[in-house]
């Protein structure tokens, strides 16, 4: 997973800056796609491989901060590194509070930019992995019958089979069978594993 390709999206309305960044980032080995405006990026971006966004604040039409806000609404917001020819403190604070990885002022030092991008890509890989995991878990959870789901909820709450049987009005044997099914379908290696999965799925630990 660490060896995956990564792509950097550059959004800046100044063409020479775009060209220079493209050359620099490609020399490091990343793929680069450049856009002259936020709208252009929204229309053509792809999210199939890990990446991040290098974004100027002042853009024609939708500004960089506006774009940040819009992307936050969706599920898979790419990490953002702001580069700006201006950069007053309030703007910087706003951007960082909204989750930007870094806020650099032009002309930025190569080292700072490359480190920020590296960090952002790592962050994105992690986020994608997590998302993939949850999707996976959800799929597995989807295979459970309603009864099995109930049982799972009780199991991760820490109840013994006997208690669960009493709770659900079924025999202990039946509960044991359900439990086995749950472990198998969820592909959990242990109870602790199952508990972790339940956490990730957001299943409340109270048996509902």
């Amino acid at each position, binding site marked *: 997973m660490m060896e995956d390709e990564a792509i950097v999206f550059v959004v800046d309305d*100044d063409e*020479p*800056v775009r*060209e*220079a*960044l493209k*050359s*620099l980032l*490609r*020399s*490091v080995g990343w793929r680069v796609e450049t856009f002259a405006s936020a709208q252009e990026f929204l229309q053509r971006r792809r999210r199939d491989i890990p990446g991040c966004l290098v974004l100027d604040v*002042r853009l*024609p039409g939708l500004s960089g901060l506006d774009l940040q806000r819009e992307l936050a609404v969706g599920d898979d917001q790419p990490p953002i590194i702001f*580069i700006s*020819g*201006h950069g007053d403190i309030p703007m910087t604070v706003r951007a960082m509070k909204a989750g930007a990885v870094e806020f650099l002022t*032009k*002309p*930025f030092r*190569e080292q700072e930019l490359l480190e920020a991008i590296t960090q952002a890509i790592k962050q994105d890989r992690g986020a994608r992995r997590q998302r993939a995991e949850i999707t996976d878990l959800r799929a597995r959870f989807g295979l459970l019958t309603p009864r099995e789901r109930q049982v799972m909820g009780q199991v991760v709450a820490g109840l013994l089979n006997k208690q669960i049987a009493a709770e659900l009005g079924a025999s202990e044997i039946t509960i044991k069978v359900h439990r086995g099914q749950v472990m198998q379908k969820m592909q959990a290696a242990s109870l602790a594993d199952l508990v972790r999965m339940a956490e990730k799925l957001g299943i409340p630990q109270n048996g509902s």
Partner: protein
Amino acid sequence: MTEIDSWQILTEALPQLIWAAAPDGACTYFSTQWTEYTGVPESEMLGWGWMALLHPDDTEPTRQYWMDSVAGRIQYDVEYRVRRWDGEYGWFKTRGTPVRNGNGNIVRWFGTCTDITDQKRAEEALRFSEQELREARRDLEKKVASRTAERMRAEEALRIAQADLAHVTRVTTIGEMAASIAHEVNQPLTAVVTNGSACIRWLSANPPNLDEARRAVGRIINDGNRAGEVIRRIRALVKNTPPQYECLDINELIREVTAIAHSEARRSGASIQTHLCENVPSIVGDRIQLQQVILNLAMNGMEAMSEVMEEPKEILVSSSSSGPNAIVVEVRDGGIGLDPENLTNLFSAFYTTKPSGMGMGLAISRSIVEAHGGRLWAEPNKPRGAVFRFSLPTQDENTL
């Protein structure tokens, strides 16, 4: 009646003073008018006695003349001053005519003296007046010359003051644009540094990628030149040289101003669009001053739009012909518009709606346009905002 009687009646009747003299020059007769004038009896004047009655300065010259005439050398036609009975001198024009005998010898002289005192006085008065007039005229000419020099100096000083004021306003505008100018230089600088880093990495690759490295360096050169262009434009605008009139393409001027101001527009969330008529005729004018006018109008438009929320915030600059002899430039914005109460004050010096403004921009713009033979005026824009237009005579019209 004897000859003498007739003679006497005649001579006594004439206004002139009559005299007679012997061929040797001694006077033999003086009419009574002589005695009336001089107060001296005839007996004292006979012979050479009459010379004592002349003005001392005239005595010797007259004697010379008389003796030359008596000798037959010249006509006796002289002017001299005679002392009047009250001591004053009067001017007399004297003429003498010789009477000759059959042999051609002079036997007698007859002469008249005419009082030309008034004439003389008039002549002198005239000469004096003429002299005074000449002097007065000389004086006047000197005064006119010095006043003209003064006025030319004042006009020159005014021209310099206007140019200085226009210059100061330009510099102030540039000062207001400092942030966006810094940004404009910062962009190419960023690109240069980034390209430089890229170049080093391409060269450090294994194997080095000379192609990419070369391209990066090429871009560095272009970026550097771009920064130079920005500086050049700003320098041209803040120079303080006297106005230089030359043939200009107004579209070129508009494009330059758009390049200078686009970054500032971006800063206020606006954009500058142009709508240029391609075959607009050339005009004659000072490049920098006319750019100043366009820049002033565009900056005003941006300022007006910074206070409204509606998008898109656009300044539209357009050029067009207006009849065969003029062109028109229009700067249109969608800002807060003009105050109808103050429409006439808009172009007055020191009128401003900005809290920190001096109010000189439009006044100077108007004076520049008018100095170029044009007009600058404003109208409301629909649905909101303002349109500023100025006209300029075309090159042909100018040379007429």
